[in-house]
């Protein structure tokens, strides 16, 4: 093990990476609320693992979606646990990411020089909402169906582009087969690809810039450190 690490270190200087990632300097006064970002990452990983497992037994067709979800819940060993983790994890994700955003806001951490972390963060937050919206339809139960009906009809109310937008979301004039496959593709292909890219960027910024110091009374401009 030691020799393997040495071997890699000699070629790739991996110990530098470890130092940059894990032995970073943290400003004084940083506490628990500064772990919300790492917690978001943890839940994102949980959602990735459980989501991949669910996809192995899920069928995105009106005929079988509900049946396959009930197959996961009742037939596959520990399927109810895996599904439960993904379902609760989805709510936890929205909650924790939002709390992280609130902490960044109230600590003034979004200010210079961290505007980019904030802007990327806003897009990540929107994608998290997208995950929730598209995932909710997938069990093809009454709740998901009507929630999607309401959601797409809200989009339809937008001036000018509304009807086109609703049609795009539904993949047609009515909510049906094509809506389900669309939402599935967006949920498991489009959004993960986007969010992975943005999270990588976000983490790069955070590691590169270091965490901001909590604001102090006599420094009204907030954290430049």
């Amino acid at each position: 093990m030691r020799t393997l690490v040495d071997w890699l270190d000699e070629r790739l200087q991996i110990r530098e990476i470890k130092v940059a990632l894990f032995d970073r300097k943290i400003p004084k006064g940083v506490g628990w609320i500064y772990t919300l970002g790492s917690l978001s990452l943890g839940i994102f990983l949980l959602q990735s693992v459980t989501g991949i497992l669910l996809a192995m037994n899920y069928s995105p067709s009106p005929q079988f979606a509900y049946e396959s979800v009930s197959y996961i819940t009742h037939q596959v060993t520990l399927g109810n646990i895996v599904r439960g983790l993904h379902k609760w994890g989805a709510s936890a994700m929205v909650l924790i990411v939002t709390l992280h955003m609130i902490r960044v806001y109230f600590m003034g951490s979004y200010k210079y020089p961290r505007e980019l972390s904030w802007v990327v963060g806003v897009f990540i937050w929107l994608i998290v909402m997208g995950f929730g919206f598209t995932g909710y339809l997938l069990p093809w139960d009454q709740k998901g169906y009507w929630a999607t009906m309401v959601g797409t009809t809200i989009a339809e109310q937008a001036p000018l582009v509304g009807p086109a937008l609703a049609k795009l979301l539904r993949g047609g004039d009515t909510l049906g087969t094509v809506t389900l496959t669309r939402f599935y593709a967006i949920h498991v292909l489009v959004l993960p690809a986007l969010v992975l890219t943005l999270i990588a960027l976000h983490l790069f910024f955070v590691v590169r810039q270091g965490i901001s110091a909590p604001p102090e009374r006599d420094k009204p401009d907030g954290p430049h450190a």
Partner: protein
Amino acid sequence: MDPENSRRDFLKKSIFLLGGLMAVGVAVPGGTYFLSPLWRKGEEGWLELGEISKILPGEPVKVDYAQRRRDGWATIEEKSSAWVVTDDGKKFTVFDPHCTHLGCPYHWDTAKKKFLCPCHNATFGMDGQVISGPPPRPLDQFTTKVVGGKLLIKPRSGGA
């Protein structure tokens, strides 16, 4: 060790312990879920091939039947067939309709009185034994029973 270092050490260990526990907490149910096809049992049920009175001794008879079975979350109806042979109209041998070489469907050649597989020119006798060609073993048989004048077979799970 000075207190600052032992505190650091403690926190480091706690993080690894908690992180490890969380990872195991997901990996165990996740791994079990992923591996569950390994111990999942296929459905075993008897299938009805039809009245035995219609199966006459002498020539093998091809019986077509429909099989309804659960396939994951779907219930599918599959058409399948089997070759039935009897000497006395009481005891029946039922062959899986796939050649034991590479799975082609074979047929009964009335003139040659042999089962003939067209894919690689194999021939089997009426008892299922290989007469010529590449198949490594005699024709596969289904378990059979006769109940109330009807012939039943037990398909091997997974087989079509």
